[in-house]
């Protein structure tokens, strides 16, 4: 690869700006979005880019999020590269269409700026919005910082539009923490991006050339098979996601994998976290390591499809694992990520002890001290072989 004339810019960007830049560089054709805090800035930034002629796209000012996802599905099936973004209630309003997007195999890319689901109404960060949609059949990727927001959105188009995948991708970024915090972001050379995310080939699904009927009625004699196709596609997409993550590393210098591992080799206790929360967790891990405690952190980047093999490999042999959940499953044992982790070793005789830590709901700050508490509790379980409380609501005022 020629090093000459490579235009790389390093800019102070907030997560929302990084997202907008990625969408612009991906040269999308249709954007349809409805404002909701804290996503609004992404769509405002994109509107400015379109208004200035920096991005040639049709911007559809839909009248609700339900219409936003409907419009991008229609546009995607017609062959356009599309983008939408939302948070919280907006994502919840899209709910019924999300399932259809997946079985219709529309390669939609959506940024979800994670915000707590009402009630009470709350504009701050937690993961309840995306967690409520984890069974929709969408690919779910979780960004750690603004650079990851940019990188992940670009990869999302490659993954979604891959002929063996053709599934919608949800890129999650924590509201305010990631969305609005300014960090140094490297914007790569536009030509490299164009080569990495080339123009989407028309598939003629809604075309006079083919006259297909899209969105059929599937009675009991067909529904099962049609649904299974999308399930199979989601499971197989893991291979494509890994390949794209590897290629991204080769082209842009930053490699992406389903899991990010920190200090796991000799860890007696591990925390599992997602999104920007992991950044703070890492600070706690480093502090405790300085004190000689054998703790580590696993950050999940690829949440759906769930990285079963990778997690089993890293968690096998670890004495105790603490799961950080920024969402809840009322009436169940722990939160959503905990439920997924708990199934990993359900049929093994030897398995790590599990402890769930619910924290940060409705934007409640999770401090380094809180992570130290979680790590200490997990270490305790590792040392004693006893889990005193399987689900711990950290930071709740009793």
């Amino acid at each position, binding site marked *: 690869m020629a090093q000459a004339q490579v235009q790389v810019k390093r800019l102070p960007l907030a997560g929302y700006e990084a997202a907008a830049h990625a969408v612009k560089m991906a040269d999308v054709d249709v954007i349809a979005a409805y404002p909701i805090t804290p996503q609004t800035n992404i769509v405002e930034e994109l509107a400015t880019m379109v208004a200035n002629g920096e991005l040639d796209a049709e911007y559809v000012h839909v009248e609700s999020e339900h219409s936003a996802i409907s419009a991008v599905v229609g546009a995607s099936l017609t062959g356009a590269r599309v983008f939408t973004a939302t948070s919280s209630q907006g994502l919840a309003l899209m709910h019924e269409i999300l399932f259809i997007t997946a*079985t219709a195999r*529309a390669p939609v890319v959506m940024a979800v700026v994670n915000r707590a689901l009402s009630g009470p109404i709350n504009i701050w960060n937690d993961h309840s919005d995306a967690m409520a949609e984890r069974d929709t059949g969408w690919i779910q990727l979780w960004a750690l910082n603004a650079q990851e927001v940019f990188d992940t959105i670009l990869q999302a188009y490659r993954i979604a539009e891959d002929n063996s995948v*053709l599934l919608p991708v949800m890129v999650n970024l924590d509201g305010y923490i990631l969305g609005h915090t300014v960090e140094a972001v490297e914007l790569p050379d536009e030509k490299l991006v164009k080569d990495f995310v080339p123009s989407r080939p028309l598939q003629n699904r809604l075309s006079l050339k083919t006259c297909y009927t*899209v969105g059929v009625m599937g009675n009991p004699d067909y529904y099962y098979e049609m649904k299974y196709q999308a399930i199979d*596609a989601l499971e197989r997409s893991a291979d494509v996601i890994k390949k794209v993550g590897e290629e991204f590393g080769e082209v842009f210098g930053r490699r992406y994998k389903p899991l990010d591992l920190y200090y796991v080799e000799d860890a007696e206790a591990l925390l599992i976290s997602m999104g920007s929360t992991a950044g703070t967790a890492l600070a706690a891990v480093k502090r405790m390591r300085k004190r000689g405690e054998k703790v580590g952190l696993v950050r999940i980047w690829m949440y759906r499809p769930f990285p079963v093999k990778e997690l089993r490999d890293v968690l096998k042999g670890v004495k105790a694992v603490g799961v950080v959940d920024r969402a809840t499953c009322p009436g169940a044992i722990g939160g959503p990520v905990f439920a997924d982790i708990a199934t990993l070793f359900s049929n093994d005789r030897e398995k790590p002890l599990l402890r769930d830590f619910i924290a940060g709901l409705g934007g409640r700050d999770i401090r380094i001290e809180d992570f130290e508490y979680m790590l200490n509790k997990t270490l305790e379980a590792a040392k004693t072989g006893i889990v005193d409380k399987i689900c711990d609501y950290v930071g709740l005022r009793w």
Partner: protein
Amino acid sequence: MRLLSSSKKLPGWRELPIGIMNVNPGSSVNYDVASWRTFRPVIDQSKCTKCSLCWVYCPDAAVEIKKVDGGEVFEINYKFCKGCGICESVCPIKAIKMVEEVA
């Protein structure tokens, strides 16, 4: 809906087109609607003035225009006719009669 007990084997999940799509436009012509009817229309060709109203008003496109020597003739395609009787109703010269369908 095809009965599950039908002897014809239905396609497996790998054999269906992806994306909840039907890739055979107009495949409904294979579906049996003829057995719906209890009456069938009969056109008295000697009376027919070829006004084409039966062809216009049939919701099922069951009236077909066939080219014959010296022009066109309007005929019922009994594969597609549901026996609604609209053709009899709209024919301006009563050239169509609904007669009871026989087994």
